[in-house]
């Protein structure tokens, strides 16, 4: 059984700050969970606590239905893939993969079968007798995954496994990892700081900030209804536009000298943050209400689209328009009601 439950877990390094702060998470068998957040948010620490490489200050972690707080990493039935691969440089690919099994005194024939199988899955058959240094970065990464696969563990733990690869290879490997995980159906926890990687890989996403879970949900849930300002600005590229606006108390907010309907079904007052994604803001055409004038500062050409950067009412704003769109110095904006996210200015929570 490959379920992982994390219950009210804290990690205290003794410096007064909780690296992981009261995190609870329940992961179903076969799920691909991605922990994402900026550096220092505690995502790696949490993963390493699951692996048994860090002690748990408080709370408990269970793999399957066994609480593993005091279980040795080797006996937790997990396998880990590291950012720098951590292959044993003096061992051949075959021995690298087999090492963990040999240590478990597994039957020779069974080891050979598993290594052969993993090598076939990962297209490493021709490299089994090479040393890691004779392999490319992508191949080394595959060996590291092979080492995890042969264990046939309850869960795979990935600690930023693609960060050392170049951009193109990273996209390829991303696809491979996803396919592999589908095929093996093994529960996986994957740590990354790259929101794109997180969105594309995850069945469910955990956004961490300062040791706390900001939001847990499917990539689309997080994208469509971010629970906080932090998630809103972290997920999605280019970043969501956030404007300071005034609640008017009548189903609209005041942005500059325009009223923008928010459709929230309740009145909002005081200063709030209005979030709208660059792809949702549109140039105002025909009878659509104009909500502001974008003073264009520069344009990024991406091929399929152009990103127009500038300011509206003195606040930074990015607008994504189709490639053919002609850009002038000033663009009138329309903010569709259904694309609006409102956040409390103080707590950052979604309204």
């Amino acid at each position, binding site marked *: 059984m490959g379920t992982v439950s994390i219950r009210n877990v804290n990690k205290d390094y003794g410096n007064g700050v909780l690296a992981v702060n009261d995190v609870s998470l329940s992961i179903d068998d076969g799920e691909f969970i991605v922990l994402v957040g900026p550096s220092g948010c505690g995502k790696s620490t949490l993963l390493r606590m699951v*692996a*048994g*490489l860090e002690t748990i200050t408080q709370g408990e972690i269970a793999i399957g239905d066994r609480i593993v707080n005091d279980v*040795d*990493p*080797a*006996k937790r039935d*997990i*396998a*880990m893939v*590291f*950012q*720098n691969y*951590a*292959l*044993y*440089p*003096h061992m051949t690919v075959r021995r690298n993969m087999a*090492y*963990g099994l040999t*240590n*478990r005194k597994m039957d020779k024939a069974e080891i050979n079968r598993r290594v052969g199988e993993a090598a076939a899955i990962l297209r490493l058959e021709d490299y089994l007798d090479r040393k890691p*240094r004779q392999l490319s970065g992508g191949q080394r990464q595959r060996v590291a995954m092979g*080492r995890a696969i042969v264990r046939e563990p309850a869960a795979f733990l990935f600690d930023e496994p693609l960060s050392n690869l170049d951009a193109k290879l990273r996209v390829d490997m991303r696809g491979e990892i996803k396919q592999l995980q589908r095929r093996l159906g093994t529960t996986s926890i994957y740590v990354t700081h790259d929101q794109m990687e997180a969105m594309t890989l995850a069945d469910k996403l955990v956004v961490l900030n300062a040791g706390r879970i900001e939001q847990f949900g499917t990539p689309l849930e997080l994208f469509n209804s971010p629970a906080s300002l932090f998630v809103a600005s972290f997920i999605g590229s280019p970043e969501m536009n956030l404007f300071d606006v005034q609640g008017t108390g009548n189903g609209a907010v005041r942005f500059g000298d325009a009223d923008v309907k928010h459709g929230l079904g309740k009145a909002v007052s005081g200063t709030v943050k209005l979030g709208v994604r660059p792809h949702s803001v549109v140039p105002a055409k025909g009878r659509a209400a104009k909500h502001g004038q974008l003073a264009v500062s520069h344009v990024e050409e991406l091929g399929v689209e152009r990103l127009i950067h500038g300011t509206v009412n003195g606040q930074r704003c990015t607008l994504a328009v189709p490639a053919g769109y002609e850009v002038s110095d000033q663009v009138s904006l329309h903010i569709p009601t259904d694309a609006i996210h409102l956040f409390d200015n103080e707590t950052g929570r979604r309204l």
Partner: protein
Amino acid sequence: MAVVDTSTDIPASAEARAKTHIRPPSIRWSVVGDHAILIFGALFMMLPVLFALITSTHEAITIHKEGLQWLPGGEMVDTYSAVMFQQSGFTGNITGMTMLTNSFILGIGFALGKIAISMIAAYAIVYFRFPFATLAFWVIFTTLLLPLEVRILPSYEIVHAMGLTNTYTGLIVPLIASATGTFFFRQYYKSIPDEMLEAARIDGAGPVKFFFDILLPLSRTMIAAIFIIMFVFGWNQYLWPTLITTDEGYFTLVRGIRQILQVWLGSNIPQYGQAMALAILAMLPPVMVVVFFQRWFVKGLTESDK
């Protein structure tokens, strides 16, 4: 040294040939200058050894009359076989061969002992958390400042009290604690990424297994480098063997040269040739070790294969 006038090389292609035809042969004075300095330096280092080697092939009488010799003489086989196999010394039962063997035992035991001790010490310091670990390291490290000579009397007292004078154990064991080695291995272990240890832990390797399966093979080049340094260092030990060995059967070459020469003063003329030969013999093994292990040595100090 790699800068050589290419006009003397066989051109690899027609194009290259055309090129060499166009370019007139020129003397690059900077290259000549570099070589002159290098050659002078090499001669400066090599000549004394060369003189010793050449002189050792002459009869003692010739050397006594004419001093150092410039040309090889005809006594090489005689001198060297006398030095190696002729029994001499007070007791008359020590040969060059015995001393050579002793030197090897000291050099190898010294080097291997130092490597074993310092590897294990560094392993403890780097990979285990225990109280005062940092303090322990600095205590070890500061002993770097204290050469053998500083502690030689107490060391001698202890070895003597234990009855270990005139034994190989007494010769080797008191010398094998090595701050230098510990420091080198510590630095090396620290350069091995933590993930390697973590991967091994997940793979079910305990402390002993990790040491033998991962750390030891990874340290191969480092071990080779330290072996060379320590072997030469051990081989050249003079003061400690002089103190600890009074039985000629335990004399090392370096310690024996002077002793043997004194004994041979019994004849009318000092056996200069034989002394020179002994010096050459004493020098040869360290040179061989360095030449043989040079590749490993450089690798150990520069390579980062992780």
